């Protein structure tokens, strides 16, 4: 009897072998901080009141739902990686016909009152499919290790640009580069691709929408904006800078940020949630937060460091790049380091698609961490 119980416990424990509980807890802590500041951001708003509750529910549901996702067999994942990615690309492709337009962008599918943003799902799936492609090409040439991944990335990237969603589109490039780098791409290839990419970006500047050019202009001239610019196209940037700077050393206190409470900060529960954090917690708090979130990415990298199989390592590295990129773009936009472009911060910003995408990414990391000796051979076959 005793032996039977022990064997049952060992069997259940074996199911969770290698599961990164620490990462899960850390992600829940980060999410909890996010909920707190979403609550602060929406406290005074009748329209958005209740976002923190919705976000909490979404986090709990996704954190729980991500566990079985992590349990999927490696073979299944490898077999269906391109299928899943194709579904995401298809969802992006159909947006112009079936998506809804909100604030001039067509990024969402509407299901009743709820909306789904396929880009948020496409990003972790891009990590999956890139890992799937790069896992066997450690010494591949330019074509296999760099060019094909670029083509793969360009699919969701161009479709996302078309929505338009510049921030999300640009966030895919660092993921590509990080994964190619870890996969063993030659530095010269990457550098030349980067240079070509930057030149390409400059070349397409005249093709950008008027408002996008205007934002770049505002960003370039942010130190001497006219009052009309501050009230017009530069409003988001200026208000975000004011909120962050007003936080000073110690901040205004939780729920006491004046820019936040009095509605000057735009999109403060989504694209500018960091400005709320900075205003209410000051330099100390915002620095701590950046350290925490960067640390979160580094923890994922540490998992990647320990993972022995190449596919799992690439998955973890890609997810780490995914979080780090979002942190840098989100905080960079809020602080004026980068041109204004809306990008939510995974686990922190309000948005159920974003939460789901982040937890799918974490599920990929968990999947990579879990020990599956039998499946490793399968991996080699596929």
């Amino acid at each position, binding site marked *: 009897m005793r032996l039977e119980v022990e064997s049952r416990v060992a069997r259940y424990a074996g199911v969770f072998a290698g599961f990164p509980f620490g990462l899960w807890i850390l992600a829940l802590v980060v999410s909890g901080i996010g909920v707190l500041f979403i609550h602060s951001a929406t406290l005074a708003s009748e329209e958005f009141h209740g976002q923190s509750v919705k976000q909490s529910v979404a986090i709990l549901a996704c954190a729980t739902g991500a566990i079985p996702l992590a349990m999927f067999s490696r073979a299944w994942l490898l077999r269906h990686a391109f299928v899943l990615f194709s579904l995401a690309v298809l969802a992006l492709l159909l947006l112009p016909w079936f998506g809804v337009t909100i604030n001039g962008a067509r990024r969402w599918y509407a299901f009743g009152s709820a909306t789904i943003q396929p880009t948020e799902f496409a990003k972790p799936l891009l990590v999956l499919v890139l890992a799937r492609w790069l896992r066997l090409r450690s010494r591949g040439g330019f074509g296999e290790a760099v060019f094909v991944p670029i083509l793969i990335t360009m699919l969701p990237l161009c479709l996302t640009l078309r929505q338009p969603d510049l921030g999300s589109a640009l966030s895919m490039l660092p993921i590509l580069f990080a994964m190619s780098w870890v996969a063993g791409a030659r530095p010269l290839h990457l550098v030349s691709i980067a240079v070509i990419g930057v030149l390409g970006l400059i070349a397409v500047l005249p093709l950008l929408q008027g408002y996008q*050019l205007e934002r770049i202009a505002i960003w370039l001239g942010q130190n001497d904006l006219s009052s009309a610019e501050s009230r017009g196209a530069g409003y988001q940037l200026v208000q975000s800078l004011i909120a962050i700077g*007003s936080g000073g050393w110690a901040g205004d206190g939780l729920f006491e940020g004046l820019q936040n409470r009095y509605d000057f900060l735009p999109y403060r529960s989504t694209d500018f949630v960091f400005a709320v954090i900075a205003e209410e917690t000051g330099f100390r708090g915002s620095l701590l937060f*950046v350290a925490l979130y960067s640390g979160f990415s580094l923890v994922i990298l540490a998992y*990647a460091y320990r993972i022995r199989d190449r596919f799992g390592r690439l998955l973890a590295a890609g997810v780490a790049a995914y979080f780090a990129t979002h942190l840098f773009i989100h905080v*960079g936009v809020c*602080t004026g380091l980068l041109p204004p472009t809306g990008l939510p911060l995974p686990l922190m910003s309000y948005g159920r698609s974003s939460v789901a995408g982040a937890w799918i990414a974490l599920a990929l990391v968990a999947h990579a961490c879990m020990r599956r000796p039998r499946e490793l051979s399968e991996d080699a076959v596929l």
Partner: protein
Amino acid sequence: MSRAKTRLLMLAGGIVFLATLLGFRLFELQVVQADGLRLERTRNLHGVEWLHAARGKILDARGRVLAEDESKFLLSFVYRDFRRAHAMGLVLHADRFLRDLSEVEVGLAAPRGLLRGAPLRYVDAAARFEAAALGALALPMSLLHRRGPLPKRLRSVLRFYVFKILSGATTVARAAIDLGRHFDEKYLEPGPEPIGQLLAAHFYPRADRAAQSLREEVLDWLRAQQADLNEIASLLSPRLSLPGSTVRVARGYISERGSLLEWLDACDRLHARRAERKYERYREHSSDVGPSFWARVADALFPSDAAPTDRAPSLTRRLANALAAGSSKGKDATAFELRMAMRFRSESGPVLVQKPVDFADVVALVLGKRERFPGFEVEEELQRRFPVRDLGGRPYRILGLTQRRELAEDDEARPSIVLGDELDLDVDGTKRLHLADDEREVWKVQIRERLLREYRVREGRNNLELKLDAVLTGRAGWRALLRDRSGRERYSPSHVAAHRGKDVRVTIDTEVQDLLLAALRRAGEDMIAERELAPEDLRASFTVIDAVDGDILGMSWIPETYRNDVLELDIPDRKNPNCEHRWEPPPGSILKPIFAVEGQLTGDVDSGEYEVCRGHFGSGWNRVSCDCRGRWKPQTLEDAVKNSCNSYFGQLGRRLTVVGLQRALQRFGLLSGTENRIHVPGLRIDLPGHVPDERRSLLARSIGYGWRTPPILIARAYAALGTGALPPLRLVDAVDGRVLVREKSTPLDVGDALRRVRIGMVAVPRDGTARRAGLQGDRIAAKTGTAEVSGNKNNAWFAGYLPWDRPRLAFCVTFWKCPEGVHGGDYPADAVRYFLRSLDAKPALRARLFRGAR
């Protein structure tokens, strides 16, 4: 260590590097630039609201409110809000939009307007609007479709008009809004169906009657909105100004009157003209065919005009300008769209329509504003109200007017504004706003500056409002506010309450005032009729004071209004000739009793013989003529006063000398040693501080020439003649209900000298110069005066007191610049008679005025 692990470590290093970069940026913003950015936040948040202080009331002697502050409302109008929400505006502008569109090349086969014929105007018949509304419903859906011929911005404008018109139909309102929002999702392909039919088919149960039902509903809505417009027109004053049809005359504007619909058309034209002008200016300074994007960027990077300047823009600024130029000259920014944008901007400014608006009307406007009266905005303001009016239906002119004035920084009237540390405390003094010390100081400085910059007071412009300004003016208060992004007040950390001004009760009795004006008018009309004068040639003043206390009971004057030919308006005449020098001043013989008193005191009256009056006295330039009734007879002082004999008073003056004459005037308060004015609270009385006209001979001065004195002081001097004491003039009786201390009258200490003068004055209306005035039945002692002024005109005076045995009232009537032949015993004395007769008809008033008299 494998290569992959090394690369992972390098990736981690990259993440740490980026995090460090973010940390430095945060340090820069939150530590280095924190003060400046907090200041920006303060500018965002804080606001100041003025709490207007009501000005004190002015009450008359019987407590009737003559002037008081009341809340009034200013009505303004934002044309854009109107035309975007009102059915007529929507239909009219949809029609206009299509017509304008047909003039530009957009590759479009769109209808040229919603109806045939001339463009729609607000003054058009209702049937035209109905036809246009039906035209909007009949527009093909392809015109609104994203795959239709219109560019996106133009399409969205047309969609706005059409779906707003559709949503006016109550039954399908929600469906129409929904259709407008999700049009592209619902209809993937453009089609030729009319948009109205599309909606009706979706909503109404009976397909065969659907289109008709929708038409009927839209038309019902249009008619209801037209009715609402008529209702608001009835609320507005008939003096509604028409900005589009004003005629500019000199420095003023004359507004033609017109209906609200005409006015709306005028507004529409006005904005169209403004937008066109703006567009033309824009065209002058820009070109559609500018340098290419890259040329602009290259120019920004390598400017050709590389002349070094002190304030050359930075490279990033130049790049920003280049990009911004690219964005504003986007490929789809056509001239038509630019015109449209300029028009929208022009329409957004509010236009003051009317002030003041009554509270009841405001309630109607505010309650129904959103749905029924879009575009009309109401703002509260304190305004002066005059509940009691004079005989002409105007506010009493002695009250004066008020005006708003912005106080300069060095103005003494500017209040000192002290902001304490309570600024960031909550109302209960507990909750802090988490303002840092430096931020609080910044806020204080800003609020103070703003308060000082915007501090305005309402001050008096003339008469009582001006003279009593210090008492009547309240102290405005203010509230420091925290406002949210939309300007709504969210929190008020600090405020200073407003203090209303003090109420002032004056000694003027409006009933007396009315009688005085009526008497003046009547006597004036007599003169105009008998002397064949033009009404505008009549100038007269009448003042009555309490002979014992010196209370000013009434002051009236003619002309009541003067004509402003430029503005073509009759403006109330407010310069009070009873107190202020206004026309040629010589009082003439009215001063003789005063000199007579002095003559007795010096003994000059009784010393030596006086020549009989031969019709003149003196010789050469030092000569006076006389046509008194006592000629060729020896006259006593009493006779000389009664007959106003120039010859007698010439001789008396020669004996008194100038010094004696001056002393006489000073004794009766008619000449000051040094000052040019007498300061009575509420009044400014002009008074010569020296003998003004040295050219006048001694004899002329003896009979009242070469002196200047206002009628009110003559009345007071006559009160002194009657009572033996010079009363202090008094206009303000009480402030905030507290009666001011009365000054005592100054005894003349002239012994028996007044007795003989009084005898002469009592005889004036009975048998003297005023014998024809019909005042024999009144116990009145008076004196006439007729002074020649330039242009063969006379100043005709009549002053006195009554009852002669125990004086209660003293008066002075003056008809200024009368035709030759008019003297004080004529119309001025008639005015007194009219006054006394009307007083007889008011026994209560008479009893009040003559209290204590026998």
